[in-house]
């Protein structure tokens, strides 16, 4: 079936947007098979976002842990500070190609909102970002950045006031403004074709990693570790390695205060199959299918679902999904800052935390690549709060 990964994915959306999704799918495939489009996309990745990003050998961290070699894929060095821009440049160029002058997006941590506002500013498009009220509070720096870039930030008060509700509201806005508005989805979630499209615009992370590790180590890595909110940075780095069975793919979800509390976002560990935001996937929901409130210290992982292709990779056993708590992520955040001089995003710190657990158990010639999906500037307020430091 189209738009399915096994049983996962699909298009569970109101009829009003079906024709728009069909058109989007059509235009997307035309675009990625058009050399001019791809050239333009690559041009902006290179000249505007600063790609390729380095694959940095974290020597200090590796030595400190005394196990496998740890490489960091430096998505934090992208323009705007996270991997989100890769996808945004692709979708904004597609919006331009389709003649759309208005773009909307949801955002959790604000990184996707900032990236979308950035793309919209460059291509002179009107931009509205939907963001949960709670997230607005904890990512105030990014809210201000979006405004500086000329975007309208619309607070979402419904539900839990986080990413899930921002997606609902963005979809509702899209249904209402379907003729002239392009929805720039921020992760490998939502109805088909978004999970495929976002993956294809993020796979540049994995394509580069492959080339870089082959040149540095003359072989493929043993492990690739990435954090999973909706799953775009992880899918981007996993995808080009899917057929290399020697490469273990590990997604790290947010365990918040612990997966046996009611304050976590570990969808794979605790979820069950259902339908949300137009896709069939694993969800944190109760027996009646009501979506449960989720929690993580990092706004970007605070999501009760996961991309449908991840659900498929999990069920087929191709990828493994683990989790890290707030505490572990914070500790990795501090460690990476102090040992390597790199302040990671709290989201990415979850991946670092798991890699730090894994590395000592491996041989010295094993290789782990950690996707450092973003930088931590946006999180300094949150961390200062936890440390009870006044800024």
């Amino acid at each position, binding site marked *: 079936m189209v738009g399915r990964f096994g049983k996962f994915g*699909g*298009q*569970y*959306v*109101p*009829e*009003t*947007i*079906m*024709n*728009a999704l069909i058109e989007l799918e059509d235009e997307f495939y035309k675009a990625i098979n058009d050399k001019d489009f791809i050239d333009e996309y690559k041009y902006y990745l290179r000249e505007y976002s600063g790609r390729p990003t380095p694959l940095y050998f974290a020597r200090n961290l590796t030595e400190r842990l005394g196990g496998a070699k740890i490489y960091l894929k430096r998505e934090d060095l992208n323009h705007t500070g996270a991997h989100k821009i890769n996808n945004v440049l692709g979708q904004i160029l597609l919006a331009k190609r389709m003649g759309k002058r208005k773009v909307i997006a949801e955002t959790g941590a604000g990184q996707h909102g900032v990236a979308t506002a950035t793309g919209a500013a460059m291509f002179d498009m009107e931009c509205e970002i939907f963001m949960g009220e709670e997230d607005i509070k904890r990512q105030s720096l990014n809210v201000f950045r979006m405004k500086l870039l000329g975007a309208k930030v619309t607070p979402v008060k*419904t*539900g839990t006031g986080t990413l*899930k509700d921002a997606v*609902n509201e963005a*979809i*509702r806005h899209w*249904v*209402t*403004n*379907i*003729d002239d508005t392009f929805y720039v989805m921020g992760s490998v979630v939502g109805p088909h074709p978004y999970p495929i499209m976002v993956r294809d615009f993020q796979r540049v992370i994995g394509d580069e990693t492959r080339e870089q590790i082959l040149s540095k180590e003359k072989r493929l890595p043993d492990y690739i570790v990435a954090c999973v909110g909706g799953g775009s940075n992880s899918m981007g780095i996993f995808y080009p390695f899917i057929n290399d069975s020697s490469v273990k793919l590990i997604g790290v979800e947010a365990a918040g205060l612990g997966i046996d509390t009611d304050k976590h976002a570990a969808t794979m560990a605790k979820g*069950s*199959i*259902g*339908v*949300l*935001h*137009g896709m069939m996937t694993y*969800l944190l*929901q109760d*027996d*009646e*299918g*009501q*979506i449960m409130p989720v929690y993580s210290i990092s706004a970007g992982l605070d999501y009760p679902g996961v991309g449908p292709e991840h659900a498929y990779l999990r069920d087929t056993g191709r990828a493994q999904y683990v989790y890290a708590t707030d505490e572990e992520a914070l500790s990795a955040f501090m460690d990476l800052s102090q040992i390597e001089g790199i302040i990671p995003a709290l989201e990415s710190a979850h991946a670092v935390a798991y890699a730090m657990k894994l590395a000592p158990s491996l041989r010295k010639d094993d290789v782990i690549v950690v996707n450092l999906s973003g930088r931590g500037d946006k999180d300094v307020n949150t961390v200062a709060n936890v440390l009870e430091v006044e800024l």
Partner: protein
Amino acid sequence: MLSSVEVNNARENRIDKKFNELKKKGRKALIAFITAGDPDIDITINLVYKMVEGGADIIEIGIPYSDPLADGPIIQASSTRALKKGVKIDDIMNAVKMIRQNTDVPLVYLVYYNSIYKYGMEKFLKSAKDSGVDGLIIPDLPLEERKDMKELSEKHDIYLIPLVAPTSNDRIKKICENGKGFVYCVSTKGVTGVRNSIETDIEKYMDLVSKYTDLPKAIGFGISGPEMAKKFAPYCDGIIIGSAIVKMINDSRNNDEIFDNVANFISSVKEVI
């Protein structure tokens, strides 16, 4: 071959029967929506009776859901209130069963797909049928995803009401193919709510729907009251009103006021269609 009249009489769906009756009288159906459990399930039950007394022809019962994508703020808030009260699907099934003992009004559920999926599709349909439900409206189950649901609902003899939108164009044909009950014609690009006006060229839109199907057509989303209902009635076979009723329930100060306000509103709309 059995005479089709006999078969139809034996188990004519209440929805078909209602539209046939109304057609003979030259009247249009008033389809009234309320959220189950807002403000509580007993009031929901009594509201159904009051609405029927007031002239409602078909009752649409919303099963509250945490993430109602197709709904605007009024029904979202109503769902949230009902969920806070702790209303469960089985409570709603029981309420419907009770209602069914007292009235023959056609009853349809407005239910998001995840509620059915998680409850168990087969179990849901069986329970709905046993309770006396005649049809289902699933706003997030488009043509592409409805195959299993369509087969199962036919097996359990419950109508899966097809939905079309002003953006559907040539999809309308396929959507309405083998359709049952009526076609839910979404009036406008957008979510449910109470609107002052609707931009869609309703006449043209309904002409297009009629080109593809002989099913009765009901218009819903955004209809605020008698004035708008009267305006649209000539182009369709039914008018669906939800948010306006839900808002009225929430704005009322006590139960008596809820019943009076809603019953009066319903008759004021019914009078003009």
